[in-house]
């Protein structure tokens, strides 16, 4: 059955397939709440096309990354693969529980998912059990965690999204990565225009959300020169130097609207996933990615507006 799963997963556009025996998970892991009979967790990884990042990299188009790299994968392609592979497993006489991310539901009381509208998130929903996706991806051998907590894989670096199937079928596991990709170079830390990633790799999700949606004027071609004119620390915000704790982040998110809705409550990534592209460029330069391109992703310094563009006089307020 393992081979059949791999074949069908490839057919449904999964790029990487990994298997983890349930024994790799602690007994209190959510997978045992979701399916107490679970014997194997199957991870399906889907690349985000490198070309999808080209628009924000050039600063010329933002629509196609969020629609094709996020929304279409999460809402159409990955669910389709999950359902087809799950049905195959059940046809073979086993239980299959497909698991995808639910971007608008979270157990935490005070957290956020930068990719969606803040106000549409249902928080504190502990009754809806959800897996730890990053941990499961590592255990399934899909990749290793980079400094900023993103999964990195040999082929696509950080340009990957993933889903899982829990099953009571006992299947041979995939070797877990021996970490070899992330060298803690700190490019992701430097790449974030909102300084949302600390030197130790900890990501402040609220800070990330605010800057994902474009609060950094230096990397946002849709921001007016007098943006945040009523705020005393507007230049700090625009330069990405302000620290935005949850309440402040909520205030800022309520007034940020640089780009229209991308469907399914996803908001456009105005930062262009700068942390991931910086990481990808570093890995590509090191030559460790197995998926090679004829031309490097980045051949010159990324564009950036000068902060002076946003300095306004009092009469402009």
């Amino acid at each position, binding site marked *: 059955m393992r*081979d059949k799963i*791999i074949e069908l*997963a*490839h057919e449904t*556009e999964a*790029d*990487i*397939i*990994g298997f983890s025996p349930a024994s790799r998970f602690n007994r209190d892991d959510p997978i045992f709440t979701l399916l107490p009979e679970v014997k194997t967790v199957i991870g399906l990884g889907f*690349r985000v*096309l*490198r*070309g*999808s990042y*080209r*628009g924000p990299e*050039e*600063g*010329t*188009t*933002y*629509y*196609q990354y969020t*629609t*094709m790299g996020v929304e*279409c*994968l999460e809402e*159409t*392609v990955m669910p*389709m693969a999950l359902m087809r592979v799950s049905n195959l497993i059940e046809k073979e006489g086993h239980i299959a529980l497909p698991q995808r991310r639910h971007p608008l539901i979270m157990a935490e009381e005070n957290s956020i998912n930068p990719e969606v509208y803040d106000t549409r998130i249902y928080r504190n929903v502990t009754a809806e059990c959800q897996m730890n996706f990053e941990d499961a991806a590592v255990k399934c*051998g899909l990749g290793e965690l980079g400094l900023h907590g993103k999964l990195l894989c*040999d*082929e696509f670096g950080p340009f990957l999204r993933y889903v899982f199937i829990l099953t009571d079928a006992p299947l041979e596991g*995939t*070797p877990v*990565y*021996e970490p*070899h990709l992330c060298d803690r170079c700190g490019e992701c830390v430097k790449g974030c225009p909102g300084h949302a990633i600390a030197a130790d790799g900890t990501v402040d999700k609220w800070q990330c959300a605010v800057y994902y949606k474009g609060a950094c004027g230096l990397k946002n*071609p*849709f*921001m*007016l020169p007098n943006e945040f004119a009523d705020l005393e620390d507007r230049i700090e915000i625009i330069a990405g130097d302000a620290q935005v704790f949850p309440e402040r982040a909520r205030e800022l998110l309520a007034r940020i609207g*640089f*780009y*229209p*809705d991308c*469907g399914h409550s996803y908001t456009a990534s105005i930062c262009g996933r700068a942390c991931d592209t910086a990481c990808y460029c570093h890995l590509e330069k090191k030559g460790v990615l*197995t*998926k*090679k*391109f*004829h*031309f490097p992703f980045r051949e010159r310094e990324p*564009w950036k*507006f000068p902060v002076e563009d946003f300095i306004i006089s009092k009469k402009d307020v």
Partner: protein
Amino acid sequence: LINRFGIEESHGNSTDKNTKKGSVVPRYLPRIKRCLRKMTELTSQLIKERAEKLGAAVCGIGKLELFEGESLQRHPKSILPNANCIIGFGFPIPKGLYLSMERNASFYSYTNLGVKYNDEEFAEIFLLKMGAMIEDAGYDACLQKSVPNLRIKGDKQTNPEVKDTYELVHAVPVEDGKPAPDVIIDFGKAAQACGIGSPGLSGRILSPRYGPFMRWCFIITDAPLACDEPLENSVCDRCGECIRACPGRAIGVDGLDTWQCAVYYRGAHKSNPLMSEEFLRGDPEREEIINGEKRFDAVSARVLFPKLNFLPNTHWGYAPCLCGKKCDIACYKHLMKEKSNER
């Protein structure tokens, strides 16, 4: 190394560096098929064969030289500066969906399947598959699905197919020599460059084989592919059938008035079978509106939109088409008659 599928591994994963210590098993067994595919040479023929297999009825590859003189806001090279060509794909809309509208039997299926499903699901999945094939060969694939709800800076028109459109009025170029984002390519010009269609008088892209009954998407790539010849002659002979067919008089010899179209597309004309006596009751302009005589602009159209609530919008905000696409049907019949359309 021979993997467990009996396939000899020749890709980078089989090197010592990427192999677990003390093991001859490469780390990435499950990806064998793709890893092998990446080494294959990408040709125009391979692309066209796969496109057909995945559901595209037409596929053409266009030279970017044909975009010379095009605005940077519409130019493929603004998206991928080292692009070599653009690949165009067309998906037919079943004629039955038009027939059911012409017979006043069903309208919603056209919007739901012919428009929404085609553009938001079918084309997206298709593009991701085609893009993966191109990137497996080591070239970038910048997918270009339709952008229904956005207008580039300076474009004051609308897209009648969606509940409303948003112009990126505040956008500025990020560097000298670049256009303000977003860059949205002109699908009509792209189809013409790829040799698979050309814009008609009504603004619709007309395929030589399928006329206006088709949806489109594109990929901009740096892959050095052999290109097709562009369409030299327009499919549209400017017969004016679309002009005469539109119940809202939205098409003129100068082309489509998108705001006028948006109002009548969603059913402001009395030929809309869902319209009752209650529609605009008491409005002094009612007769003028339902007879297709009133002229609309962005402001007046947006005022009327909430009252054109005959059927729900679909997901992604596509407005139900209640004009029955009379322009396209008239065009198709004309092309069938005059040009012995192949289909």
